[in-house]
């Protein structure tokens, strides 16, 4: 897509500073407009008036209903969309670098399947949303840990660490999906089964403030190291031995990056349910806009992912008479978008 667009024949020119500012401004606009957007519309100037008023204690001229809608109903949800979108994108971008493959998504090692299993258990026992998230978070981490542990044992016998890891990840993911199906089978079809099914489709309507704090904590723990080491993720896209010859202990870095990215994925899935495609397509779009250098790619993914999920959440809230699960919309948008992306990108990147 970039070929012959911004660039001469073989080189590509990106405009990172310009794009970063544009993305930042675009994110803020979407954030503010989305606070006003919905069945009860609040004009942008009133939204700003409310936000400024709440932060700086200046007088608020908007109606009490508008304040209630913006602050108590939408703000929490839009902050959640921002964090989940950003986290999934960062996690996907990281996974793609670590696995040297641009079509990897952040649940490659079973994070989503594990989290879904935990959530299903919690829902069967009628626990509240806070505990659903906590349990699903830990089963998600557990699944990835299991995949990693098995692959470590296996790769003592052969030497292809990365491929072994991908395969064990797939096995573990499919195992947990089977467990989840088993729970659905025994769940009460009138009350529990719909709850599980609905959770699996992903959405932000059940967000509670405690979950948001948990998400924020996990996000900070995951994102800060990834940002600090972002330049080194570039190196991970070369062969293990090449990376080692440049002075990096490739296994340590790989575990570190996987832990951080898994933390982000699992925390997001635990709060929002399974939301597919974001962690796969946002890194692509970000690369097209800002180039493959992780130093710039990470912040770009964060902003684009956050903006994207806020917009998609707007659609789920408003496009239809009753709310549609977020995961369905991201898939409906994501799948065709990805195909277009692949068709246009052909020739740029990975041949030979």
């Amino acid at each position, binding site marked *: 897509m970039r070929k012959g667009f911004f660039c001469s024949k*073989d*080189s*590509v*020119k990106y405009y990172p500073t310009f794009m970063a500012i544009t993305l930042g401004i675009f994110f803020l606009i979407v954030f503010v407009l989305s606070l006003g957007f919905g069945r009860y519309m609040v004009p942008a100037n009133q939204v700003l008036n409310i936000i400024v008023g709440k932060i700086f204690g200046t007088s608020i001229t908007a109606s009490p209903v508008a304040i209630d809608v913006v602050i108590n109903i939408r703000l929490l949800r839009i902050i959640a969309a921002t964090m989940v979108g950003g986290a999934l994108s960062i996690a996907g971008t990281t996974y793609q*670098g670590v696995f*040297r*493959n*641009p079509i990897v998504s952040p649940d490659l090692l079973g994070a989503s399947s594990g989290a879904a299993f935990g959530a299903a258990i919690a829902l069967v026992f009628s626990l509240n949303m806070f505990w659903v998230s906590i349990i699903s978070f830990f089963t998600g981490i557990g699944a990835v840990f299991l995949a990693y542990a098995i692959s470590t044992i296996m790769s003592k016998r052969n030497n292809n660490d990365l491929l072994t890891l991908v395969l064990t990840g797939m096995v573990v993911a499919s195992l947990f999906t089977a467990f989840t199906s088993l729970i659905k089978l025994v769940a009460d079809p009138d009350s529990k089964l719909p709850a599980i099914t609905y959770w699996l489709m992903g959405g932000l309507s059940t967000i509670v403030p405690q979950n948001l704090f948990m998400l924020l904590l996990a996000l900070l723990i995951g994102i800060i190291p990834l940002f*600090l*080491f*972002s*330049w*080194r993720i*570039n*190196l991970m*896209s*070369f*062969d293990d*031995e*090449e990376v*080692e*010859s*440049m*002075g*990096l*202990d490739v296994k340590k870095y790989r575990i570190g990056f996987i832990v951080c990215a898994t933390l982000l994925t699992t925390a997001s899935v635990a709060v929002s349910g399974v939301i597919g495609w974001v962690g796969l397509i946002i890194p692509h779009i970000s*690369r097209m806009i800002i*180039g*493959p*250098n992780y*130093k710039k790619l990470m912040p770009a993914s964060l902003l684009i992912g956050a903006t994207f999920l806020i917009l998609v959440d707007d659609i789920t809230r408003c496009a239809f008479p009753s709310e549609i699960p977020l995961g369905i919309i991201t898939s409906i948008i994501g799948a065709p978008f990805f195909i277009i992306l692949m068709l246009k990108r052909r020739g*740029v*990147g*990975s*041949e*030979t």
Partner: protein
Amino acid sequence: MKLDLLNVSCGYGQKNILSNITFSIESGKILCILGPNGVGKSTLFKTILGFLKLQNGSILLDGESILNWSRRSMAKSIAYVPQTQPQPFSFSVLEVVTMGRAPHLRSFESPAKKDVEIAEGSLDRLGVLFLKDRIFSELSGGERQMVLIARALTQQPQVLIMDEPTSSLDFGNQIRVLKQIKRLAQSGLCIVMTSHFPDHAYLCSAKVILLQKDKNYQTGVFDEVVTEENLRKAYGIDVKIIHTVDDKGAVIKACIPVLS
């Protein structure tokens, strides 16, 4: 600067592939590892680079054992030029070459202007600075080889280890790469390379280590090691070594296989 291997045994895990290898090489010199497929050429250089555990013996850099060196200090002294692998992302050449600065930067540091200048310097030293804005994964084999050499130079090492630097290059590019290798050695680097072509060792005026299938090896200057007899033993084919004279009257040698 001097790289010494003393009675080195190496292999994968418990399995021994080469034993009792001893040689030394100083800065400004090239050592070419020759030998048939599967004899342990890669095993040898991977052991020097620390990818494989040394089974026995010692590897010394200026008399100091590198056995317990950290990855980072290794990378500052010994750089590796691999055979090119597919690269999934479209990094620019300059970005790839700048990655060679990694061992000199703190873990969460990213390259500063100074580092990019060093990377540009490496490209310039090889005469390929014009490639810097091109996309690495879209370069031709010869260009990519040059870029990987530039990345290794950016590590500012004393030793350069090259894995078949001329493999999969066309005839012209093979010679161009050899010319650069020779120039780098003349500028003071110590170069260890593997090759499938005895001629290439000659062209670079390299010292040779010829690995035989029976775990024997010969090492020394080209004329001593690359003989018709030794080549026959190593590769199992008949070879004639012929002499000719270039335009300036200097003697050139070449190995010609005999099919019959």
